[in-house]
C-alpha cells in the first residue's frame, strides 16, 4: 500500500471516530441515533420522515422518492400521448395524398409531438430519475430544497395539462417545437396557439430549473462522508453536469418565449424586421438553448449506461477520470454548436465553418465515453439481462446517430439534408437510441429498487427485440427518403415522387415500436403487482442506492454511510461503515464539504407543507392568464406573494430565529 493510501486510510479512520464521538454536533438537544437499537431507530426515523396519511398529507409530501414517482408516472403518461400523436402522423403519411388528417390538425400534432417529447417527457423523466436516485446514491435522506422540488412537480404537471387541454380545445401550437418567428409572431400566428407554446415553455422551464438547483446542491453539499469528488458515481456526475447545463441553457429559451409573448401581447417589435427587429435573433436564442437541450437529455443517459455496464460487466467502468472529464467537456462544448441548426440561413461562410469544427469537436469526448465503455465490457462475456440488452441497443443506434451527426456538422452536406427526413432520422437515432434505450434499460435496472420487485425477464426480452426492430424499421429508411428529397413537417406528399412504399414501411415499423411499449406497460403493471421480490441488491451492484432496502424506507438510510471507494458496496462487502450523531426526532442531514466530503454541519431538512402546491397553483394561474393579458403579472403577484409567505413562514427553530 502506498503512503498516499495509508494517509487516506488514516483520514477515514479519523472521520469515523469523529462521527462516532458525535463531533458533528456539539450541542445535545434531542435524541440521537447513537446507541439506539435497530428497531427503535427505525421507529423514530420512520415517524420523523413520514408523509402524513390522507389527501392533504399526500399533497404536502416533500419526500424525494414520492415526488420522483409522481414525476415518473406523469412523464410516462406524456410519453404515451407523444407516442400516440406520432402514430397518428405515421398513419397519415403511410401513403401519398391521404386525407385522414388535414394540415391544420397535422401541424398541431407534430408540434405537440415535439413539444411533449422534449419538454414534457425527456427532460422531466431524466430529472425525475435523478430526483429519485441522486439522494440515494450520495447517501443522504432527502433532496436539497425538498419543498422547491415538490413545487416543481406541480408546475410541471399544470404546464403539461395546460398544453394538452389546449390540444383538446383545438388551440394547440401549430408552428413546430421551435416555433420560429414570424410564423409564430403576431402577424402570421393568429389566435392563442403560439401563446400556448410560449407559456408552456415557461411552466416546464421553471420546474426544470428548480430541480436542477436542488440536484446541484444535493450533489455538492449532501454527499455521504468520504465521498470525495473522485468517488462520486458516474451517474451522479452526469446529473450534476446536466443540472449545470440546465441552469445556463434554460434561461435562453425562457427569454425567447418571453420575447415572443411580448411581441404578441404587448406589441413590442423584437422580432419584427419592419420595425428594426430581427427574425434570426429568435433562432440564435432558441438554439443557444436547443443544442444543450440535446445533451440535457443525453448526459443522464450516459450515467445510466455507466451504472448498468458496471453492474453487468462486474467491474468498475474503465477510465473514471476520462469519463468525468468528457462529461464536463461535453457540458461546455454543447454551448458552442448552436449555429449548426442554422447553416441554411445564409450565414457568412467562414463563421459557419467555425461551427463545423466545434460540432466535430464534441464527437471527441463522446467518443472517449464510448471507448471507455467498450474497454469496460472487453474483459469477458458480461451477464446479459434486459438492462444490458438495452445498453447494447443504445450502442447500436446511438453510435449510428452520432455518426450522422458528424455528417450534419459539415456545412455543405447539411445544406442538402437540413430540414429533411434525414434529420428526423438522425435525431431520433440520437434521442431514442441515446436516451430512451438507456432509460428503458434503467427502468429494468432500478425498478426493483423502487418497487421491491424484479421486472419480468421474458417480457423484457420480447420488449427489447420488438422495440429494437421496430425502431430501426421506422427510422433507418427515413435517412433514405430524406436524401430522396422528402422535407420534414409535410402533412402529405404527391404520389409521383415515389415515396409511398418506403413511407408505408416506416409506418409499419412505427406500429411495431408502439406495440413494444404496450408490452412494456403490461410488464410494468404485471411486475409491480406480481414480480419476484428483489431483495436489497438484486444485481450485486456497487453504489449506495443498493445499500438500503427495496423499496427504500422514507428516511433512506438508518445510518448515514461512510464511503471509502467509488463502488462502496464492492469495497466493503460485509458492513458499510456509518456516521452517527444525527438527531432522530427532527429531520436532520449531514452537510459535507464540496471537494472532500468531510462532514461539516448538521442541517435541518424541510418538513412537509401544502404551500408549494398553493404556490404552484398561483404561479400556474398567472401563467395561464398571461396568455390573454399582460395584467396577469400584476394580478398574479399578490396571490404568489401570499403563498410564498406561507411557504417560508418561520417555524421557530433557533436557526430561523437568529
Amino acid at each position: 500500500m502506498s503512503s498516499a493510501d495509508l494517509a487516506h486510510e488514516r483520514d477515514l479512520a479519523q472521520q469515523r471516530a469523529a462521527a462516532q464521538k458525535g463531533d458533528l454536533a456539539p450541542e445535545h438537544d434531542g435524541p440521537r441515533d447513537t446507541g439506539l437499537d435497530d428497531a427503535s431507530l427505525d421507529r423514530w426515523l420512520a415517524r420523523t420522515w413520514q408523509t402524513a396519511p390522507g389527501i392533504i398529507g399526500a399533497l404536502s409530501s416533500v419526500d424525494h422518492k414520492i415526488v420522483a414517482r409522481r414525476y415518473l408516472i406523469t412523464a410516462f403518461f406524456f410519453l404515451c400521448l407523444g407516442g400516440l400523436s406520432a402514430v397518428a402522423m405515421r398513419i397519415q403519411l403511410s401513403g401519398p395524398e391521404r386525407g385522414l388528417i388535414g394540415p391544420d390538425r397535422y401541424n398541431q400534432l407534430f408540434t405537440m409531438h415535439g413539444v411533449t417529447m422534449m419538454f414534457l417527457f425527456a427532460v422531466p423523466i431524466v430529472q425525475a430519475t435523478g430526483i429519485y436516485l441522486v439522494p440515494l446514491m450520495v447517501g443522504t435522506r432527502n433532496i436539497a430544497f425538498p419543498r422547491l422540488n415538490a413545487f416543481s412537480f406541480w408546475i410541471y404537471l399544470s404546464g403539461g395539462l395546460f398544453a394538452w387541454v389546449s390540444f383538446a380545445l383545438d388551440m394547440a401550437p401549430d408552428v413546430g417545437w421551435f416555433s420560429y418567428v414570424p410564423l409564430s409572431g403576431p402577424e402570421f400566428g393568429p389566435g392563442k396557439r403560439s401563446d400556448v407554446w410560449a407559456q408552456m415553455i415557461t411552466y416546464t422551464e421553471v420546474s426544470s430549473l428548480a430541480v436542477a438547483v436542488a440536484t446541484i446542491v444535493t450533489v455538492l453539499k449532501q454527499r455521504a462522508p468520504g465521498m470525495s469528488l473522485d468517488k462520486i458515481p458516474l451517474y451522479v456526475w452526469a446529473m450534476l453536469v446536466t443540472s449545470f447545463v440546465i441552469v445556463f441553457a434554460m434561461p435562453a429559451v425562457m427569454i425567447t418565449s418571453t420575447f415572443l409573448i411580448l411581441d404578441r401581447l404587448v406589441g413590442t417589435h423584437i422580432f419584427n424586421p419592419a420595425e428594426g427587429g430581427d427574425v434570426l435573433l429568435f433562432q440564435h436564442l432558441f438554439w443557444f438553448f436547443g443544442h444543450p437541450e440535446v445533451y440535457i437529455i443525453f448526459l443522464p443517459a450516459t450515467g445510466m449506461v455507466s451504472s448498468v455496464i458496471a453492474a453487468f460487466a462486474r467491474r468498475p467502468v474503465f477510465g473514471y477520470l476520462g469519463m468525468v472529464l468528457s462529461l464536463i467537456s461535453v457540458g461546455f462544448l454543447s454551448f458552442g454548436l448552436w449555429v449548426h441548426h442554422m447553416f441554411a440561413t445564409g450565414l457568412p461562410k467562414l463563421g459557419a465553418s467555425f461551427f463545423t469544427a466545434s460540432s466535430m469537436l464534441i464527437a471527441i469526448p463522446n467518443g472517449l465515453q464510448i471507448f471507455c465503455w467498450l474497454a469496460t465490457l472487453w474483459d469477458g462475456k458480461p451477464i446479459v439481462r434486459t438492462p444490458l440488452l438495452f445498453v447494447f441497443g443504445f450502442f447500436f443506434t446511438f453510435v449510428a446517430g452520432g455518426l450522422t451527426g458528424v455528417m450534419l456538422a459539415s456545412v455543405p452536406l447539411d445544406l442538402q439534408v437540413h430540414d429533411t427526413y434525414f434529420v428526423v432520422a438522425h435525431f431520433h437515432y440520437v434521442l431514442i437510441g441515446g436516451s430512451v434505450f438507456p432509460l428503458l434499460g434503467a427502468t429494468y435496472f432500478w425498478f426493483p429498487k423502487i418497487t421491491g420487485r424484479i421486472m419480468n425477464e421474458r417480457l423484457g426480452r420480447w420488449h427489447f427485440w420488438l422495440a429494437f426492430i421496430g425502431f430501426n424499421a421506422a427510422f433507418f429508411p427515413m435517412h433514405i427518403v430524406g436524401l430522396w428529397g422528402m422535407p420534414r413537417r409535410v402533412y402529405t406528399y404527391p404520389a409521383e415522387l415515389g415515396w409511398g412504399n418506403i413511407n408505408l414501411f416506416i409506418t409499419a415499423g412505427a406500429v411495431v415500436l408502439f406495440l413494444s411499449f404496450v408490452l412494456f406497460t403490461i410488464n410494468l403493471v404485471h411486475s409491480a403487482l406480481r414480480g419476484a421480490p428483489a431483495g436489497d441488491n438484486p444485481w450485486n451492484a456497487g453504489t449506495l442506492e443498493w445499500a438500503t432496502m427495496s423499496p427504500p424506507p422514507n428516511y433512506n438510510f438508518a445510518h448515514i454511510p461512510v464511503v471509502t471507494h467509488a463502488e462502496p458496496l464492492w469495497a466493503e462487502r460485509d458492513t458499510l461503515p456509518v456516521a452517527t450523531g444525527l438527531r432522530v426526532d427532527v429531520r436532520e442531514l449531514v452537510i459535507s464539504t464540496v471537494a472532500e466530503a468531510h462532514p461539516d454541519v448538521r442541517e435541518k431538512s424541510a418538513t412537509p407543507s401544502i404551500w408549494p402546491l398553493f404556490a404552484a397553483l398561483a404561479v400556474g394561474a398567472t401563467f395561464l392568464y398571461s396568455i390573454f393579458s399582460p395584467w396577469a403579472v400584476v394580478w398574479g403577484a399578490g396571490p404568489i406573494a401570499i403563498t410564498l409567505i406561507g411557504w417560508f413562514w418561520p417555524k421557530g427553530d433557533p436557526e430561523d430565529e437568529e
Partner: protein
Amino acid sequence: MLLLAGCSGWQSALDPKGPAAGELAWLIWFFTALCTAVWLLVMAVLITPLARRPAPLGDLLVLDAAAERSKMRIVVAALAATALILVGLTLLSYFANRTLAAIGSDAALTIRVTGHQWWWEVRYENDQPNRILTTANEIHIPAGEPVRLVVTSTDVIHSFWVPNLSGKLDLIPGHENVLDLKADKPGVYRGQCAEFCGAQHANMSTFIVAEPRPVFDAWLNDQLRPAVAPASGEAKAGHDLFLKRPCVMCHKIGGTIAGGTVAPDLTHIASRQTLAAGTLAMSRGNLAAWIADPQGIKPGAHMPVVGLNGDELNAIVAYLEGLK
C-alpha cells in the same frame, strides 16, 4: 445501394444534375462510407466479448494492472484516430464549401425569388426596366450556365431547395441570401419549400426548367409580352368577368387593368406546367377545380372561394387557358 440509386428521382440529392449537387453527392457518399466503416468497427468491438467466456469472478475491484494499461493505450490511440478523422472531415467540408462558392462567380443572369405563403414569386432582373419579368413558381434557366438567385421573403421564413441542383437556402424576411446554381443539362428539376411555413408548407413546390440558351431566350421574350387577347366569345366573357370579380384584387394580367401583386402573376399562366405551386398539373379541368374549390384542394391557402356559377367558371377558365 442499388435501392438508393434505382429509386432516386426528380427531387433527389443522390441524383445530381449540376456541379453543386454533384460535389455534395460525392461528399454525402464519402461521409457515409467512412461513417459506416467506423460504425462496423465499433460494433465488432462491442460484440466480441459476448462470444468470450465470462471473466473470472474474483474481487470485483482487483483489476489486472497490465491489461488496464494496454487498454489505456488502445483507448488513447482510438481517440487520436477519431481526432484525426474529424480534422480530415472538417477540412474536406471546408474545401467543398469553397468549391460551391466558386460556382456562380460569373453568373450573367440574376433571378430574384421571393417566398410567399404558399407560392414563389420569380423576378428576372434586368438593367432595362422594360425587360424585367415577373412570373411565379416555375423558374426557367439556361442550361450549362451559372445563374444567381437572390432569395428573400415578405411573410414568413421559407427555404428554397432543388436537391438535384444544389443545397437549400432560407428565404428570410428582412434578409437577402444568394444561391448560385447551374444545371448541366436541359431538364425539369423539382424543388420544394424546406422550412416549415404554415398550413400549406407541403404544397409549396417549384420547378426549375433548364433549357438550351436559344430556347430560354425565346421563352423570356415570349413572357415579356403582355397577355394575348381573348380569342373566343367565351374567353372574352371570361376576361370581362375576371376584371369585375375579386380575382383582380390579387392577380396581375399584363396588358389588362388587373394589377394585383399579392398573388401569382397570371399573364402567361397557361404556359406553366403546374397550378398552385406544383399542387396540380396544368389542365382545363384542374383550373376549373382550383378556382371552384381552392380550400378543398389546398386547405388554408390564401385564395378565397369566389362565388361563380357554372357558366362564369367556364368562361374564366376559357380565358385563363388561353394565356399562353
